[in-house]
């Protein structure tokens, strides 16, 4: 009886492996990057700062598109906008930011992404008084190569 049960378990276990195993080799990953120059403003009335802040600079977008037989194609979108600088329109105060994000997105020919980020005066300890701004991106993919082909976007507020 015990021998039968052991053989039966092995059979079941083997079947489970066959039924559930998805060969990892069938998954495909495509990585592409795009650098976008963005600009925009964060009005004082929205941020509570004494002045409107004007932003401009590069945002590096890296799209890792993964196709997997067991899943709809998806994208891990890495956004690095730390090169963007803000400047106060009245005082000329310089603002840095922490515009880094990794976003999970479904893959399609186009995507519209909104993500907020924190910005703060370029001074020691100023991160405690950080404010929020909004980065909007419109992405276009080549659905054959899975690569990013075009990105537009700007900076604003919620």
């Amino acid at each position, binding site marked *: 009886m*015990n021998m039968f*049960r*052991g*053989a039966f*378990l*092995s*059979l*079941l*276990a*083997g*079947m*489970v*492996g066959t*039924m*559930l*195993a*998805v*060969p*990892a080799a*069938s*998954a495909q*990953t495509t*990585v592409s990057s795009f650098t976008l120059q963005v600009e925009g403003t964060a009005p004082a009335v929205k941020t509570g700062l004494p002045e409107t802040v004007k932003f401009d600079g590069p945002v590096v977008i*890296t799209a*890792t598109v*993964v*196709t*997997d*037989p*067991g*899943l709809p*194609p*998806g994208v*891990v979108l*890495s956004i*690095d906008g730390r090169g963007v600088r803000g400047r106060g329109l009245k005082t000329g105060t310089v603002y840095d930011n*922490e515009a*880094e*994000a*990794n*976003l*999970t*997105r*479904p893959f399609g020919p186009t995507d519209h*992404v*909104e*993500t*907020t*980020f*924190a910005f*703060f005066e370029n001074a*020691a*300890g100023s*991160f*405690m008084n*950080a*404010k*929020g701004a*909004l980065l909007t991106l419109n992405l276009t993919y080549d659905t054959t190569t899975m690569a990013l082909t075009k990105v537009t976007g700007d900076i604003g507020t*919620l």
Partner: protein
Amino acid sequence: MHSPIDTLRSGLPDFFRPQLLTAAIALGLCTLPPGAYADGVPTGLPPSPSFGIQKFTQPMPRLDLLARNPVATLNPAPTEQANTAAQPVEPALGGGTGPIEGRPPGPIWAHQGWTRFPPRVAIEATMEGAKVNTSYNPGVPASLNSGINPASPFPPRFHPNLPDQGPLALWTFNGTLPPKLAIARYGEPVLFREHNKLPTDPKANGGFGIHSISTHEHNGHHGAENDGFTGAYFFPNQFYDYHWPIVLAGLNTINTGATDPKASGPDDSGGLTTVPGDWHETMSTHWFHDHMFSFTSQNVYKGMAAMFNLYSGLDRGNEAIDDGVNLGLPSGTAKSWANLDYDVNIVLADKAWDAKGQLAFDKFDFDGFIGDRMTVNLVDNPYFEVEARKYRFRILNGSVSRFFKIALSDGSPMIQIGNDGNLLPHPVPLTELDEQGIAERYDIVIDFSRYPVGSKVYFVNLVQQTNGKKPDRDLSLREALAGSSNDPVVGKFLEFRIVRNPAQPDVSRVPDPLIPNPVLPAVTRSRTFEWGSGGTQTTLPARPGSGSEVTAFDGPWGVKTDHQGEMLAADYGRITAAPSSGTTEQWTLQNGGGGWDHPIHIHFEEGQIISRDGSPNRVPAWEKGRKDVYRLRPGGSLVIRMQFRDWGGMFMEHCHNTVHEDNAMLLRWEIDNGGAPFLRPLPTPIATPQGVTFVAPDDILPSAF
């Protein structure tokens, strides 16, 4: 003999293990329960009935402090080696006699450092079925706990509209809610004694969960005998003594004279007790949870989880002391350390319940389990009253398979100060936290002084996830607030009510830097671990004495090591890696699972992420500290470096999507070279109620060395 696998083999439910059940279904030997094929959230179950619950109608309770007692209160007294005094074993567990302590006996599982770090504090808890809490200790007055009267009985329920959870549905520390919080400080070793008071009948489990348990202190720098090894589990009517020495890594090589005041713990009068070790390895926010082989997901979901705050000279839990060491993070001032007034633990966990309001779980879906109700500290969508000042929140993702991404509803910044157990080198201001994987802890500071008294702001979850494989998508704040997602856990889940100005000035600080990273010595060995599907088992079929009873059978998940051989399903009798004590290694963690996501947890040692997807520039600011859970992301990889030192024994690494972990995405590694350039492989413990026996490792991979 009564291990889960023995249960499978010896007459109780033959299809006890989920994998086997699935195969049995395919053979037409049994059927799934009604609703198991339902689409949507919760996965595999009907939607949880609402019971008329409205969000934000009950307060979020602070966690319930576990009492700290003199070690002399423990009876019997703790011992260096396991206490093997015999007791009768109930017939449901096989009868006969067995040891009172479930820790494996003998010198290998004796407490390391027992004489050097004798326990000075005892924390004693049970694991048992749900009951009313009549001794709730939130550690703060009711005014700082949303008005909850701790003297009132605290029922085991997720909302006043719901019935109490039954003793078979919910298993928690001390059998009660809220979840528990332990506190400790450097320089004060802890003896955590856990009594297993669960039913002796393994079928008395409310449909899921198992009564044998092993508690992992995540991510303690302790000897392996205290790590909650997945095979070192113990049974009802036994206890297990975990010795947590609470030491800094590097204690044998750095600051050995304990002369650096930054390497310290707080004393009771505002001063410091210095300790040996590297202060850069100071840790802050841990948790402990069940790690039972093949049943971690079910048991943790059932309630076997608690948080653990570690206090140090740097992270004092007193915001007013300014002695050049204390960072002064938001906490409070009344006590010299461990003030919880403005330091709040938060456990996030998605749940589901059945038509009777009892906790429900789908154990048949190996992708993972996603619930449709959001709980915070195990109550449904609560509110929390705050003063208009800075607060620290220690946020734990205590889910089985769900990721979270948190923002404030008005888009205001938060300051992330910690990731996993560790304070970051620098604070990071963020308006949206990163996706928080299962078991990850994010420590953040929110300054509520920006809000007028009487106003409200919310935590919002931006991640839509409808299966256990990975998040579907991250929504914008606008989309998440619109309420259009098909995932009921998207959107607002915790309401902050700014109820008053602080009675005392807020003197807390968030300094920069916080805790810089330790300097890593040169790498002596590199390894690669690929995490994917299609795991196979090379240690089957069972041979007498082979230890094959410690395998997870075939996958579906597995790990391939150093690009060699097959993707292997878990076998805790197999030694996959054997780092040499005193060395630094570089480990590459690769997602071999295509579009899936896997949060990988490495026990015992903290690592630093060197690169993501081949680039150091892809490591975001909030991952530039030390970590113990590493998200791979779909198609992703990362490189980490870790030092292996101070303690030895058998440890693990695994996916912390605990359904993946339970279905074979786990491996054992160990440190035991005794100073020599070779491994002395440790025998594998085989736990039974009648006592723990040992077998030789059933496999040692060539890549181990």
